[in-house]
């Protein structure tokens, strides 16, 4: 494409091979008067000078406005693969962006969780397989020798999930929490979105580690209900007391029995039979409390 204006000699080709200014002005104003517009556009593709002329006739306020919106759209991060995947599954884009503010979904947090799990699970495995000799007595249930080594893992794993969920709802981890309260977006919805995604994200490594830890085959499944009950309890407690106190209470309510049972060399009891029933009951009760008192999350906790 040459820069001179093609076409048979006529009113279009100027002396220098470029279309006349009036023609370009008319084109820019949308007055496509039907003479050689196709050629004009083809010429524009190759000629910076005429493009500048056309731009000069365009609506500069409109162009400036579009430019500022463009620069904003560039500045808002688009999100990684996970977000695109979830978007494809139909999760609305604005909900995904809300999750971006949750610390327990950030890579650094997840890496720490994985790290702690690795340590705890690794310790259990090391003792069980005799790589390290510690004075653990071979206690536990019949059929599950050496279950005592699972004590640290059973103690820590659900607490890690609780920590992730707590970070999702504790105001101290949301620096702009007062803005969130003062905004019309439902505080309860925000909480649910964050808590559920934190739960799901933290459960995955925990369940995976439960498979790897030397223990009974039903361990990964048995961990689910207590973990869910623990997190639900923390949320329910947050409607009744200060959120930090709620998280700590929930953690203590798991840690104390866990430690006691570990001291008695029967740590697995915490995930068996009666304990599972108790967890189910706690889960249902907590869910009910959260639903009934969900307004608490809309009002916030002001000092």
């Amino acid at each position, binding site marked *: 494409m040459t820069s001179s204006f093609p076409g048979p000699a006529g009113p279009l080709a100027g002396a220098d091979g470029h279309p006349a200014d009036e023609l370009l002005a008319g084109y820019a104003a949308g007055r496509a008067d039907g003479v050689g517009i196709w050629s004009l556009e083809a010429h524009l593709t190759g000629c910076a000078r005429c493009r500048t002329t056309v731009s000069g006739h365009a609506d500069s306020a409109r162009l400036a406005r579009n430019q500022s919106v463009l620069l*904003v759209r*560039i500045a808002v991060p688009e999100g990684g693969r996970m977000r695109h995947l979830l978007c494809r599954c139909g999760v609305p884009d604005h909900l995904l962006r*809300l999750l*971006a503010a949750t610390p327990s979904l950030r890579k650094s947090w997840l890496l720490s969780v994985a790290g702690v799990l690795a340590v705890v699970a690794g310790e259990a495995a090391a003792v069980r397989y005799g790589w390290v000799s510690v004075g653990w007595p071979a206690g536990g249930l019949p059929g599950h020798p050496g279950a005592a080594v699972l004590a640290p893992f059973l103690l820590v794993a659900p607490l890690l999930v609780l920590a992730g969920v707590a970070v999702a709802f504790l105001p101290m981890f949301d620096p702009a929490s*007062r*803005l969130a309260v*003062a*905004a019309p*977006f439902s505080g309860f919805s925000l909480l649910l979105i964050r808590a559920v995604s934190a739960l799901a994200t933290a459960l995955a490594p925990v369940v995976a580690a439960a498979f790897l830890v030397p223990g009974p085959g039903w361990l990964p499944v048995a961990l689910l209900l207590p973990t869910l009950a623990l997190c639900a309890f923390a949320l329910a407690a947050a409607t009744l007391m200060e959120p930090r106190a709620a998280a700590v209470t929930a953690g203590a309510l798991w840690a104390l029995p866990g430690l006691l049972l570990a001291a008695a060399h029967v740590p697995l009891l915490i995930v068996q039979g009666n304990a599972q029933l108790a967890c189910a009951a706690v889960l249902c009760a907590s869910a009910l409390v959260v639903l009934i008192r969900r307004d608490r999350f809309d009002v916030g906790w*002001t000092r």
Partner: protein
Amino acid sequence: MTVNVSTAAVRADGLSRRYGATAALDGVDLALERGITGLLGPNGAGKTTLLSILATVNEPDAGRVSVFGFDPRDAAERVEIRRRLGYLPQELGYHRHFTVAGFLDYVAILKEITDRRRRAEEVARVLAAVSLEPRARTRIRALSGGMRQRLGIAQALLGTPDLLILDEPTAGLDPEQRLRFRELLSELPADPVIVLSTHQADDIAAICPKVIVLLGGRVRFAGTPAELAATAAGQVWTAAERDPGAHLSWRGGDGRWRHIGDSPPAGAELVASTVEDGYLLLSDAAGAR
């Protein structure tokens, strides 16, 4: 100048709030109309508590609030208030790893602007209003204090609120930025109800056509800055030496002493009273200096 209470957009009757033994608010009545109202008072006077109650972030122990006819005690009406609200808290925290535009986008979602493109337009609009456009991609942790304050103002402006509550918006702004802030407030579309708090009297004189003085959890004055200045009329004088009979004295930049008191001595050099003088006199009277 009084505000017609029955038609006021924002009303509070008998608000009280205690924290432990201290009464942060003690029977506060106020009525706000469209336009800018300044809330003047020292730190600890209850300004932040009052503003947080108006912003539905806090609940009073006693008293009623009505914002555009909505009562924040009802959940559904509370949401309606929040839809019309822009709030800048006193110490606004930011997710430091967010970019400026990312943070504003986040707040815009909280303000229920779900369409991505509309959000981008809104964010662009408020960024232009506070002159932070070149910083759209900067991370918040890299911003100066003044820029962060402007960002806080920008997020309050998202969604063109009808009620703008700004807690110490001029803190951390240099004089040129304060000027820009005043222009910004005067150019806002939709003529909202604006209430801003400050402990500096010259902010009031420069920005606010109406002022409420809050001392010790109570409203001590409500009117125009001129009326506030007039309360100290005839009670301000200067002298070369300090006068022990004055309630308040301080030395000005020119070396002369400025005095505020009930009865200036005969022959004293009276000067025109300023907003600050009126405010100081009120503070002194309230014993809350």
